[in-house]
């Protein structure tokens, strides 16, 4: 129990955000209307994905510092979980876009940035698959992971500032951060973010342990 409190917390927070997300009243905004409830499901995916990718970056750096394959395993598994979360974020976003902007895919910098980040990390997985030697694979993958993370941050942080975006807070669109997201939304939104990050961490930790068991069986 003492070690597992954060898993329980994650389940409780996500369940709360699902119930609260559908029941708690939301501000009535033009175009968005009730679809604003997607905030509780779409945006936490990105937070959880970014948290896992940063965790992966941390372990890639740790791997290069000491060449311990355990760190490589952690980096690999968290990228895989982050990709799944990113896929869910993309799907929830696409459905939302269809109902508010009128099409599943628009030429928006954030959408393109996400697509490119996903491609980068899919390439990371392909790269791992195409190198046989464990140590060489781990080293090369760690270097690529660091490169990929920096380029993704550049894309997410810098490029949108050079162009307009349809997303809230850009190009004159209403921003949920400043005035549209009222306090009732916040009491659901922040727990949802924390909950999904914890759930993502939990899935990752299970995957890491499965990989470790596989490895001990393979080399035993």
């Amino acid at each position, binding site marked *: 129990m003492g070690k597992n409190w954060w898993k329980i917390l994650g389940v409780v927070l996500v369940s709360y955000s699902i119930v609260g997300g559908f029941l708690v009243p939301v501000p009535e905004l033009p175009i968005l209307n009730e679809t604003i409830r997607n905030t509780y499901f779409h945006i936490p995916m990105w937070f959880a994905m970014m948290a896992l990718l940063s965790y992966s970056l941390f372990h890639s750096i740790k791997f*290069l510092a000491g060449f311990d394959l355990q760190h490589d395993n952690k980096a690999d598994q968290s990228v895989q979980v982050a990709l799944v979360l990113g896929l869910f974020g993309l799907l929830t976003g696409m459905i939302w876009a269809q109902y508010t902007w009128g099409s599943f895919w628009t030429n928006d910098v954030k959408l393109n940035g996400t697509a*490119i*980040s996903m*491609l*980068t990390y899919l*390439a990371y997985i*392909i*790269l791992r698959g*195409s*190198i046989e*030697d464990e*140590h*060489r694979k781990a*080293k*090369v993958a*760690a*270097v*690529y992971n*660091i*490169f*990929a993370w*920096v*380029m993704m941050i*550049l*894309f997410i942080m*810098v*490029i949108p*500032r*050079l162009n307009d975006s349809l997303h809230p807070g850009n190009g004159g669109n209403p921003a949920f951060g400043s005035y549209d997201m009222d306090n009732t939304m916040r009491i659901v939104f922040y727990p949802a973010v924390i909950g999904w990050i914890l759930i993502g961490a939990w899935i990752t930790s299970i995957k890491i342990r499965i990989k470790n068991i596989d490895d001990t069986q393979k080399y035993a």
Partner: protein
Amino acid sequence: MEFSRVKSLVHKEFLLDWKEKNSIASILIYVTSTVFVCYLSFQTIIDTTTFNALLWIIILFTSVNTITKSFVQESENRLLYMYSLANPQEIIMGKLIYNSVLLLIISLVTFSAYALFLGNPIVDLPGFVGTLVLGSLGLSILLTVMAAIASKSSNNPALMAILSFPIIIPFLITIIALSLNFSQGVNDAQNFRYFLAIGGIMAIGITMAYILFPYLWRD
């Protein structure tokens, strides 16, 4: 890092190219035939957006094809010999300088052939050529690191393209936006921000290549 060793490494690359002239000749023929295919399919391009997009796609594919070789062509024995002569930072800097010069030549040749066949709608030519220079420098930095990574796997020929395209896109779209501005003669405050973004990406690319290449170069 000693500059004299970097110089001799760059010198070595050029000597190799001089010795095996068909490698650089094949790149130039690749560019010319690609441009000619575009010419036969388009005849002339008046629209600057299409002009820029096509030009940069040709340059992107040519540079990926060119730079892929830069680590694969070194044989195991020659690599072992180089490990004993220079340290990794010197080797990556040598490769970066050599690839930059190579890509600079290639992109200028590409642009000349392209403008010759398809017409030249560029308004601000000096600015455009400057963007071309910046673009080939940046492409060579990012692609050299990706080539070093891709060369570690021997059984996947598509790996270089898979790894580098997503990484290169942020840089490429900024470069295309800048060159589009110059080709339309737009010279506003936006250009300065593009320059800043391009310079930033290049600086980060060089720094990371310098820090990370020592982990890649031998195993």
